[in-house]
């Protein structure tokens, strides 16, 4: 494993008309805390409920209502911080970020400005070429989500749904350590894997559980950082990549044409895959942050933090290392398997007590392939780990060949069932009875004496005989035995 220094340049350069450019990316990821209740109220956080049915008096900012911190959300933030190998701050504070918007009932968002709950940490990001990049985490803080404005229900009015209002978010801020859209995408995937392993965020971007503000700037390799633009609220990994690609190119074009990048907040348009200006630095809000007087500083007990640390599950990096050492997997295969917690768990169930290489090939090959093709998540798999394991057992004990096993797998995937039973019912059992194979071979040689002669000159023609044997045995003959006997009978040894 090679770890690239965050400030190495020359890794992924973009060619411009006047030379190469380096794109510099930092991400602020908003991850919804997995919790039954909101950050400062007892209202439910269930996704998809009817509008305005999960709103407490606090969430609607009724007069005289006060926030009370949900300690489980604090625990989740600490757990996430520990998963990011970050410093946990035993004292943090909540501040008010003041601005007017109809879906922000209080007229301020309770966030953490000066004293976040989690300080510096790091995420190791695996790239497809096997390289690993370290992305430093600047901070993680807790904050409230806003409600949702709905603009398409009335010709000249907007509606507000406060179900999201007050839901706990973790804002995870990276350092500007990414140098390509691929790295940024891989970082978000890794972050998502970590929070999913931890159970602190479900990572479902399509439900808005994770979204990112993407900071992009460009520079000549080795130059100081350029002026950045922030693309707000991008809600899929694909869009993050597209936004970066477009934005880097836009900035390069401006500079190469003699222009200057203005610091801006921009929006990504997923229909055109472009970004457009939302507001300039001069128009930026003055949020008038100040400590929320309704909440006391959050003080954490070190022993409590340590107890959470002790209860952390195995995280992707550790699991990957273990898969490599315990199962002898390649770094690539291990990386693919640990990218998602339930995939890794599925593999371990299949591999335990079996040939791990065979298990890995089957899980990452046939199995993931079939899932992808069917558009299924692993939670909806029609084949259980036990069933796949049994199939592998039947390969290992030579009940079926690898090729027949693929047929069995297809049947299992289509209609479910026990592999042994499927083999039995479909008569797919491998013929290992040597005399049976011999008699088939004898018949073929007797019927084709000319070919039996020719093969002595052209050994490649043995493939024709193998094909004939397989055809006549319905593919069930043990391939090694067929080869062995054919060679003997045709005198090819």
């Amino acid at each position, binding site marked *: 494993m090679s770890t690239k220094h965050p400030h190495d340049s020359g890794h992924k350069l973009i060619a411009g008309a006047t030379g190469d450019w380096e794109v510099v990316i930092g991400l602020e990821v908003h991850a919804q805390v997995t919790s039954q209740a909101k950050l400062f109220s007892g209202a439910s956080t269930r996704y998809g409920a009817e509008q305005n049915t999960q709103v407490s008096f606090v969430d609607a*900012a009724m007069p005289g209502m006060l926030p009370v911190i949900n300690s489980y959300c604090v625990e989740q933030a600490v757990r996430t911080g520990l998963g990011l190998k970050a410093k946990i701050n035993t004292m943090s504070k909540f501040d008010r970020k003041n601005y007017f918007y*109809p879906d922000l*009932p209080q007229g301020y968002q309770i966030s953490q400005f000066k004293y976040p709950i989690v300080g510096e940490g790091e995420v190791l990001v695996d790239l497809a070429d096997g390289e690993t990049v370290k992305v430093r985490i600047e901070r993680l803080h807790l904050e409230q989500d806003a409600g949702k404005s709905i603009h398409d229900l009335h010709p000249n009015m907007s509606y507000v749904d406060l179900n999201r209002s007050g839901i706990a978010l973790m804002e995870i801020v990276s350092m500007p350590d990414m140098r390509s859209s691929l790295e940024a995408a891989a970082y978000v995937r890794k972050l998502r894997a970590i929070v999913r392993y931890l159970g602190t965020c479900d990572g479902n971007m399509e439900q808005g559980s994770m979204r990112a503000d993407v900071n992009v700037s460009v520079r000549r390799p080795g130059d100081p950082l350029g002026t950045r633009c922030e693309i707000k609220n991008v809600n899929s990994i694909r869009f993050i990549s597209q936004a970066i690609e477009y934005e880097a190119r836009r900035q390069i074009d401006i500079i190469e044409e003699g222009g200057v990048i203005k610091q801006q907040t921009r929006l990504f348009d997923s229909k055109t895959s472009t970004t457009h200006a939302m507001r300039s630095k001069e128009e930026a809000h003055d949020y*008038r*942050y100040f400590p929320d*007087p*309704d909440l006391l500083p959050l003080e954490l007990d070190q022993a409590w933090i340590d107890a959470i640390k002790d209860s952390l599950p195995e995280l992707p990096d550790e699991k990957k290392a273990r898969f490599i050492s315990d199962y002898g997997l390649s770094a690539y295969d291990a990386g693919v398997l640990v990218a998602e917690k339930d995939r890794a768990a599925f593999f371990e169930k299949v591999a335990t007590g079996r040939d791990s290489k065979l298990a890995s090939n089957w899980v990452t090959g046939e199995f993931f392939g079939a899932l992808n093709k069917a558009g299924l998540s692993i939670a909806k798999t029609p084949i259980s780990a036990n069933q796949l394991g049994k199939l592998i057992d039947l390969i290992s004990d030579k009940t079926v060949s690898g090729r027949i096993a693929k047929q069995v797998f297809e049947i299992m995937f289509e209609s479910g069932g026990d592999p042994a039973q499927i083999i039995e019912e479909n008569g797919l059992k491998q013929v290992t009875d040597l005399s049976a194979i011999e008699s088939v071979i004898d018949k073929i040689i007797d019927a084709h004496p000319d070919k039996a002669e020719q093969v002595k000159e052209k050994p490649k023609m043995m493939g024709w005989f193998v094909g004939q044997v397989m055809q006549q045995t319905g593919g069930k003959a043990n391939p090694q035995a067929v080869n062995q006997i054919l060679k003997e009978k045709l005198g090819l040894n």
Partner: protein
Amino acid sequence: MTDNSDLTELTLAQARNGLHSKDFTARELTQSYLSAMDDADELNCFISKTPDQAYDMADEADARLIKGEGRPLEGVPLGVKDLFCTQGVLTSAGSHILDGFAPRYESTVTQHLWRDGAVMLGKLNMDEFAMGSSNENSYYGPVINPWRRSGDMAKLVPGGSSGGSAAAVAARLVAAATGTDTGGSIRQPAALTGIVGMKPTWGRCSRWGIVAFASSLDQAGPLTRSVRDAAILLTSMAGHDPMDSTSIDSPVPDFERAMTGEMRGLRVGIPKEYRVDGMSDEIDSYWRQGMDWCRAAGAEIVDISLPHTHYALPAYYIVAPAEASSNLARYDGVRYGLRVDGEDITDMYERTRAEGFGDEVKRRVLMGTYVLSAGYYDAYYLKAQKVRTLIANDFAQAFDRIDLILTPTVPDAAFGLGEKSEDPISMYLNDVFTVPVNLAGLPGLSLPVGLNAQGLPLGLQLIGKALDEETLFRAGGVLEEAAGFTTVPQRWWGDV
């Protein structure tokens, strides 16, 4: 007792005892107050009267009293400052912007009062969002002080912001009332109307369900006719509330029991910085008198210094407006209260807030927004917070060698309607002795000690250590006894 109008002359403690010994019923007592209220509309103490609710609560109280199951405040009729959310009853905070707002919840403090059997007579007038020292900033019009200068018909202010509460207690329209105090809003009107006002330690009473002005300073407390009444009422109002993260988790003593009638061994601090320019000689003389009363009760008088007192008012007028500017952002016309339609959402906000807020509220929202703005935060808000720490330290150091502090409550007596309303600074100076107590989060009690030459009441203030309200009630009881202040405003309103 046959003449029910006499029932309104009873203190809360006397009414409670009379109810328990069945001298009269809660319904009779409630009826007396409701009729006194109706006769005093000129004072404009009430924003909402709740007679139906009052009779229902009184009848329930009578049922319990008959069974001998009376609770601590069973059948005692109270007024509630209109800053406390009361379920199903208009809660206006004295503002146009909360038009028609009847909460679906009840504040913790008023829940405690009803839990203990009290009867709600109505919601009391106040300065809009508790911002003011004269009660002239109410959308519902000014409250008139039941006191007038001798031989002068001029209307005087009752002080503020709990002006309706103070005037109603002084005029015998309620047995006692709740108030809130952010910079003196209980103690100053109490002093100007000749009654007792108590601001407990910040965190002693839950702020849940009280419309917020400046969260780090706001605190609920009682306005009553006697120190004992204040002790009884606070015992019910106070208590830890998990719904308020700043509520103090400390047991509430029975404050009435703290009133031992002596001050033996207590050391009473006299801060030299409280002898300010413009303080009347009469106030000064009552202050000295107060020291003598303390000595006579066995206490020792100790000269102390609170060196940063001078900075309290400026610091307060940064911190309080800063918090208010944020706390009042929720009044945007979107979900409740007033909405004035506009061209678009921003226009709607602007029209709603322009029409919904009065001048003093707008002034403070502007100040608060300014002091929190980028580039000004450090110079104003941050510096004010540092001053606040210094002021708290002043008190903490003083309390190393004393048990309580004696000061005047206000530099002068009640002033005329409109006299200071054009000059916010002179209005703000009314709070010079009360504001430091809020900044330090300490308990303060104001009690009436006598009249000035014009026949208007004057008050002294006792300041205690955090969570040591008991010493204030103990000393307050002694000073009250010594002062023997029994004068009530001569009735000039209603059917005289």
